């Protein structure tokens, strides 16, 4: 049965292999070319430190970042769109085409069971696609890490694009897109319907669930006195909530905060000077804004968010695959 599935999906598997070879080759070439230009511009040391500690001329760093922004973005986009493509071109036609062309009848009238037929098709379609996606994803991240803080990683792992292509998230999305495609394919029995409706549904669900995962991972809270800076905005953390606390440690409502800070601003004569800024900061605790706080997920815990994200989409995928199995078994 594995041979049958392999033979029937041979063209698709060879296409995947071709994509893998070409993708890996292009990434390797571009990466080494990028490292050459880093070396020649004397930027090698700037890759692993924050931008303001970079000893090289600022113009060199800027022109490097501009020159490589596009290739790096295209690489990130290809990993972002990978799951959707897997859903549309591999998941959706998998059963829809058989049902549309009636070739499922051939398999259903041999002694192989419907479930075994289905599983062997699913495995033969899904596993290579996931492997190719994972390899390309790790190659892109290998390339991105070579650009370090001069590239998109500067913004931390929680920006929408960086998060979508990091860790196990792409695998979760791909699994979901694939399962969604197969399910709609079995229900509609039309390849084109499954491809378009599957893509639409995938995009909608991805957007709808985009913010959900942040709320499911326990956030940490940092509190500082108003005259101190919060570092969470610059160290790559995901800030979920922020504001002021009163002396009792309770959050102060935003409109009250606005009124109090406005009152403090109007106390000193003239503004913009260092003294007026100090007076302003000293005024805040006296008015009842004792501390600033922020709820955040640190960069070091990004993997937890990715795991929860992949778990959500993985669970949806399992449900959809169960639905596909049920529909195929009672297919008539």
């Amino acid at each position, binding site marked *: *049965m594995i*041979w*049958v599935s392999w*033979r*029937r999906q041979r*063209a698709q598997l060879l296409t995947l292999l071709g994509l893998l070879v070409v993708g890996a080759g292009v990434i390797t070439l571009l990466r080494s070319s990028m490292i050459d230009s880093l070396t020649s511009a004397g930027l090698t040391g700037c890759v692993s430190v924050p931008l303001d500690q970079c000893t090289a001329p600022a113009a060199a760093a800027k022109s490097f970042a501009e020159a490589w922004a596009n290739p790096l973005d295209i690489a990130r986009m290809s990993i972002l769109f990978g799951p959707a493509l897997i859903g549309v071109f591999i998941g959706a036609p998998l059963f829809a085409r058989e049902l549309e*062309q*009636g*070739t*499922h*009848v*051939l*398999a*259903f*009238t*041999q*002694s*192989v*069971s*419907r479930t075994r*037929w289905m599983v062997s098709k699913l495995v033969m379609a899904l596993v290579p696609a996931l492997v190719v996606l994972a390899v390309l994803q790790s190659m892109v991240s290998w390339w991105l890490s070579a650009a370090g803080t001069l590239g998109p990683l500067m913004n931390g792992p929680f920006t929408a694009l960086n998060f979508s292509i990091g860790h196990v998230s792409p695998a979760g999305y791909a699994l979901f897109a694939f399962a969604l495609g197969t399910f709609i394919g079995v229900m509609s029995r039309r390849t084109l319907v499954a491809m378009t409706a599957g893509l639409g549904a995938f995009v909608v669900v991805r957007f709808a669930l985009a913010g959900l995962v942040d709320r499911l991972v326990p956030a940490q809270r940092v509190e500082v006195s108003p005259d101190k800076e919060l570092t969470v905005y610059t160290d790559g953390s995901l800030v979920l909530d922020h504001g002021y606390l009163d002396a009792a440690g309770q959050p102060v409502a935003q409109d009250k905060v606005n009124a109090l800070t406005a009152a403090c601003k109007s106390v000193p004569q003239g503004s913009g000077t260092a003294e007026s800024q100090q007076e302003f900061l000293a005024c805040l605790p006296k008015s009842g804004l004792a501390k600033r706080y922020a709820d955040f997920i640190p960069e070091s815990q990004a993997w937890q968010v990715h795991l929860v994200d992949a778990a959500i989409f993985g669970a949806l995928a399992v449900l959809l695959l169960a639905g596909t199995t049920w529909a195929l*078994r*009672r297919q*008539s």
Partner: protein
Amino acid sequence: MNPLTATALGKRYRARWAVRDCDFTVPGGKVVALVGPNGAGKSTLLRMAAGIVRPTTGEISAFGTPVRGRIHPDVSFLAQDRSLYRDLTVRELARACAAMNDRWSADRVREVLGLLAGVDHDAKVGTLSAGALTQVAIAMALGRLPRLLLLDEPLSDLDPLARDETLRIIMTEVAERGTTVVMSSHLLSDLREVCDHLLLIDEGRVQVDGDIEEVLAQHRILVGPAADESAVEGTLINATRTERQATLLVREARPAPKGWAGTEPDLESLVMGYLRASRERRSST
């Protein structure tokens, strides 16, 4: 154990019954002609027997085992659209079918394909002619070494030569292995040569079920004066009348009354009589 038994079998698609209240038995070793007009439910019946379509009511059993969601190991099915993997070569298709079956005779497939002079084993299935396609599909069905062969329109789209070849493959199978065959077709004249049992269905119901010789012997075609039809005894199936003469298909007919000529119908005129009758029934309601 009878190869095929239907009890109160019915299949409804939305509001329409494709097959309804079907009761019949296919005895072993018979070659059954399943006939009826387009949309009579022949395909649905065969697909239910093959386990592809689930009955809405009743049950169909193959060799005593109810067919539920999967085909009986001793049954092979030829679908009307032939449902083969068209992007595979004939050789690869045979390998694929072998891989999907617990019991498989590659020799049998090679033997059947060997009967076909024109089929290139390395040609893509999708490039074959309609005749070759059907014959390859039958070869695959026979590879399962079935005891019951279900053929949905095996002769449609075939030129006379391919039709003759295909029938020969089927008849060889019947003669060599004693396989029971149920085949649906419109081509009554071809069926007459190979079939010995008739199952006529219309509007999803069984109209005639029996050995062809017996069924034919039970019926008479009576030709006589149109004015004098009351003299004829028996169950009138269908009548065609001109101004002066009536041609009646009668079941359980008594000897022809005076002035009437009685003959035994051939299969074609018998089936035509029943089909005409059911069409008249339908248009009158």
